[in-house]
């Protein structure tokens, strides 16, 4: 446990030194300043007079703002964390780490958790910041917005597992980033696949393949939508969204650890 924590802190230090942490922090700060100004533009009256009710409008406002900002946050996080595994595996570096009385799994887990910690610290400030701004500007202190923290963490845990697997496999941060971005891009398309099935009439095999991809790959857009559904009590959350996404995280993560364990360096 001590070794994992050491590696996690080492990753944090790496991100600070590479100015990634500070860039991420500046981004979060700018976003919060932007949200603060947006909230000061006289939306208060509009929200109070909203036909769907103040509470619901506030939740939609906060969720919409947070999801908009988070979409950039995820892009930035992938960019920030993609180099952590390849930098560990660099020739001359990995030898030093593997010669210490630390298991390979601990080294990798520490790096993985380091990425998650960096993400969590910023997202915590961002989401709590939006919640706080909405609270002081509109006197709306509803806690139903905060599960967005957990869903975002789960969302990024999946992307970080992809970074880990491709980092181990290719030792390239560029390739790892490409696959993580691809997953982010494909996931919402697969979620709305039925909308474009109209164009695939008669091509049942292709539809089945697309369906297959949907069920195998994590449901990122649905995961991000869960807090909103919970807050507004809208519809029923399908357990398969969480189960299949969690299984994907486990399988991809395990594969990364397995390959790292077996590889010669």
């Amino acid at each position, binding site marked *: 446990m001590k070794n994992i924590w050491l590696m996690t802190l080492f990753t944090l*230090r790496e991100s600070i030194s590479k100015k990634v942490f500070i860039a991420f922090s500046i981004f979060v700060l700018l976003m919060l300043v932007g949200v603060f100004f947006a909230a000061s533009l006289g939306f208060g009256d509009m929200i109070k007079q909203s036909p769907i009710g103040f509470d619901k409008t506030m939740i939609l406002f906060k969720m919409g703002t947070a999801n908009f900002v988070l979409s950039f946050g995820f892009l930035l996080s992938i960019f920030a964390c993609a180099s952590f595994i390849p930098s560990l595996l660099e020739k*001359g570096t990995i030898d*030093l*780490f*593997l*010669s*210490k009385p*630390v298991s390979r799994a601990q080294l990798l887990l520490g790096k993985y958790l380091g990425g998650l910690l960096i993400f969590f610290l910023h997202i915590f400030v961002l989401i709590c910041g939006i919640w706080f701004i909405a609270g002081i500007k509109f006197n709306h202190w509803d806690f139903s917005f905060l599960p967005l923290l957990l869903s975002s963490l789960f969302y990024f845990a999946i992307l970080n597992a992809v970074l880990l697997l491709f980092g181990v496999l290719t030792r390239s941060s560029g390739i790892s980033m490409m696959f993580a971005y691809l997953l982010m891009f494909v996931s919402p398309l697969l979620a709305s696949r039925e909308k474009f099935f109209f164009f695939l009439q008669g091509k049942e095999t292709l539809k089945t393949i697309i369906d297959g991809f949907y069920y195998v790959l994590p449901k990122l857009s649905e995961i991000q939508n869960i807090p909103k559904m919970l807050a507004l009590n809208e519809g029923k959350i399908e357990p398969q969204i969480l189960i299949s996404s969690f299984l994907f995280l486990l399988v991809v993560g395990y594969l990364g650890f397995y390959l790292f364990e077996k590889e*010669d*360096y």
Partner: protein
Amino acid sequence: MKIIEIENLSKTFSTTFGKKTVTALNDVTLSVEQGTIFGLLGQNGAGKTTLIKVLLGIVYPTAGTCRMFGEDFTNLHLKKRIGFLPENHKFPNYMTGKEVLTFFGKLSGLENLYLAKRIDEMLELVQMTKWSKSKIKTYSKGMMQRLGLAQAMLNNPDLLFLDEPTDGVDPIGRKEIRNVLLALKENGKTIFLNSHLLSEVELITDRVAILHKGKIIREGNVHELTKKKEEYKIVVDAELENILEGSIKEKYALQKISSSNYLIRIDENKTMNDFVDHLRSKGVSIKEMAQEKNSLEDVFISLVQAEEKNS
């Protein structure tokens, strides 16, 4: 006591999709005694680094067994007793020397108080104290090697693996490193040294093994490997070619190197006394007499060339 025991160790690397294989180690068997400095010699690509990496669990062997401290080499806890200086090591360049040592010391499982004391000692030993608060990115190659050595010795290891430890270090620094290694040996530590700087290896190692294309082609005591069995250099106060009879000169294959310096060949030990008696009977005073030695480099080159011819 044997600290390292390697039996029939082989390692084959496969390229992508296994189309091509490279044998880095081929049936290597060797052992290293406690409290000795063992040198592994070989050309670039001979398999020296691979052998160390196998012992440290960085590379997995294809076949064979290894034991360290009498235990299976895969036991993770053994690494607490091992130090390693890799070739071309890369420390995080945003850290200072002291931070690097602190981090790797903690990773080695050292307690904070002991670690702080040990860091100061090691920095002092490798003469890096005044640079300890500078960032790694400002270090020269020699300074990196010194810090690497400090890092390898931080946990006070019983077994130290050094891969080209004097690479990039100036002559004074090299001598200092040699002295450090000899002091460690005096304290009962075992050192496994990879190097292609043969003159240096010759100065400090007790035993060496020569690795060629993954195979051990010779292993032995440095003194045994380098001595020329039958030739002696002799320094006298006279011109022997004028004093000795033709038959004696022929018997001992007398060869003049320079004024008063001669080379003689003696087949058996007892004839050495005959030769000395003969000189003394002629009133020649012997100033110096020493067995001729090959340099390790000569031995290495001739062995490698012979191996190349055979293959």
